[in-house]
């Protein structure tokens, strides 16, 4: 059995097989050779994993983000944050952080943020004599907070896998996301002061007002999404659909960024990204179900209880595991395979599963940009045309900052749970 569900997927994964195929091969072998379960369960689980209303929010948020990522929305947000952050030392770096955080509250995927914000901000930082490695490292690292700040797509997938509520998870992600943004911004100011660049400009109130006027429609998206969910007006899925309609209206009629053809094009891109994710969701759900049938999570819980670990030690161990996995595997696959194994352990130790969800997101966010394999590094490389070595060298300080934030978020649960009592 451990051959089918452990060794086979491990080997195929290392050999570079597509993840859905790795999981599908493992469950097929387990069903045919090792288990006495009707084969129909395979189809039922593949189908049942996608036939879930809450998962609709995934393509909807991707679509809203695709629309808002085209055209001028990012530029408008950059101008707004820049007008606000102008007087600070390192204002361009702070602007990069602030804009990425706001953009994260519109879209749920972090690669798009790295590419969109990076293309605007890295050339500006270069002109202002920021060291290349610093700007590249900053853009690459800051995009990862998108999976912590709502609406986050990995959080929806975690919610489905852990049977948790999306609104609670979203509320729990807000402060940790802002905490990381604040730490990054503070580091930018410190670095700019120490190396003596980007002294900032005088505060210009009329410019700020103008920028606000130009970006107010873009800022409406997060207001609708979060206001709608927490005002009790929409479910998260509905808020995502409303965000799509809003994004289509704003980009088509207000900003005139997209044509009708592009509205369909964005939907085609969304279909591909969604299918990429959902085929793994479907296959991972069969895999997770077989693990449960084999009582693997229960055995793990028993084993962990035997070690007599406290909640703090369990969290520390989970962090190490998630960091290691996150450096090699994309967040969604990691969530899908590890959630059914880790959540029972965490629950048995009396740890809040919403808090744990946020801990998981921060870990996987770090994996997104940790050298050498973090996926956002390659996004930045292709979007910014910078040598990968430069990005590597610039990333380490940011990895350390995220690790400090991870320690805070892990051991001070109230940072995550404060907003939802």
């Amino acid at each position, binding site marked *: 059995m451990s051959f089918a569900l452990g060794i086979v997927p491990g080997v*195929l*994964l*290392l*050999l*570079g*097989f*597509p*993840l*859905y*195929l790795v999981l*599908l*091969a493992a469950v*097929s*072998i387990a069903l*045919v050779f090792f288990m006495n379960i009707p*084969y*129909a369960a*395979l*189809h*039922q689980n*593949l*189908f049942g994993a*996608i*036939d*879930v*209303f809450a*998962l*609709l929010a995934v*393509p*909807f948020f991707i*679509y809203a983000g695709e629309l808002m990522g085209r055209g001028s929305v990012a530029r408008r947000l950059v101008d707004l944050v820049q007008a606000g952050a102008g007087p600070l030392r390192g204002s361009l770096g702070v602007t990069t952080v602030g804009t990425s955080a706001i953009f994260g509250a519109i879209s749920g995927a972090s690669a798009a943020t790295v590419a969109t914000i990076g293309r605007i901000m890295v050339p500006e930082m270069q002109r202002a004599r920021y060291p290349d490695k610093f700007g590249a490292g900053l853009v690459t690292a800051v995009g990862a907070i998108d999976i912590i700040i709502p609406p986050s797509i990995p959080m929806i997938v975690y919610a489905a896998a852990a049977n948790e509520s999306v609104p609670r998870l979203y509320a729990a992600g807000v402060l940790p996301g802002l905490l990381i943004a604040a730490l990054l911004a503070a580091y930018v100011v410190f670095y700019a002061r120490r190396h003596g660049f980007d002294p900032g400009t005088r505060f210009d109130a009329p410019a700020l007002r103008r920028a606000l006027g130009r970006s107010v429609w873009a800022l409406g998206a997060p207001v609708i999404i979060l206001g709608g969910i927490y005002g009790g007006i*929409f479910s998260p*899925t*509905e808020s995502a*659909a*409303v965000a*799509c*309609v809003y994004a289509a209206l704003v980009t088509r009629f207000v900003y005139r960024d997209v044509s009708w053809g592009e*509205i*369909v*094009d964005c*939907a*085609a891109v*969304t*279909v*591909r990204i*969604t*299918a*990429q994710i*959902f*085929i*793994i*969701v*479907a296959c991972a759900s069969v895999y997770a179900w077989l693990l449960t049938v084999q009582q693997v999570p229960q055995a793990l819980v028993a084993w962990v209880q035997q070690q007599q670990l406290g909640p703090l030690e369990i969290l520390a161990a989970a962090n190490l595991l998630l960091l290691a996995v996150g450096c*090699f*595997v*994309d967040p969604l*696959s990691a969530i899908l395979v590890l959630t059914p194994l880790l959540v029972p352990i965490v629950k048995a130790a009396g740890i809040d599963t919403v808090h744990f969800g946020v801990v998981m997101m921060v870990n996987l966010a770090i994996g997104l940009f940790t050298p050498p*394999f973090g996926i956002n590094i390659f996004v930045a490389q292709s979007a910014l045309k910078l040598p990968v070595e430069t990005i590597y060298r610039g990333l380490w300080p940011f990895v350390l900052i995220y690790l400090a934030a991870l320690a805070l978020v892990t051991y001070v649960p109230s940072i995550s749970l404060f907003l939802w009592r």
Partner: protein
Amino acid sequence: MERALERLMRAIERILALVLLATIALNFANVVGRYAFGRTITGADELQTYAMVWIAFLGAAVVAGRGEHLRMDILARRFSSSTKGVMRIAELAVILAAGGFALWQSVRYVESMLRLGANSPMAQVPMWMPHSGVAAGLALLILVALWRFARREL
């Protein structure tokens, strides 16, 4: 033949994009209906998730056609060309075996739905329709794998 399959994939992608837009519109209409007219469309939730099943599985074939499925190819990128040659045969074999097995189970499930004549609880959609999304997607996925193997893209 090759051109035909390419065109088919593009057409499927377009159709799925329109299905997605319709799903969003349906969801939005439900929100508007609830607040403006105090009522919702019966079975709208079912129609949306069924659409998602088709998008997920047929879309997976479209993604395969572009060679865009997520994989961890850190090691695989460093394989020698002869190892890569073995790997593409291995990958095709696994797709045929595992994908074929899953396809077989899906087809059997769809058949049983047809026999039972089961309908969905709210929208009264015949259940073989959403379930055949899985079968159609897997069938196309296998076809795409063969096609890409023949063109030495896999």
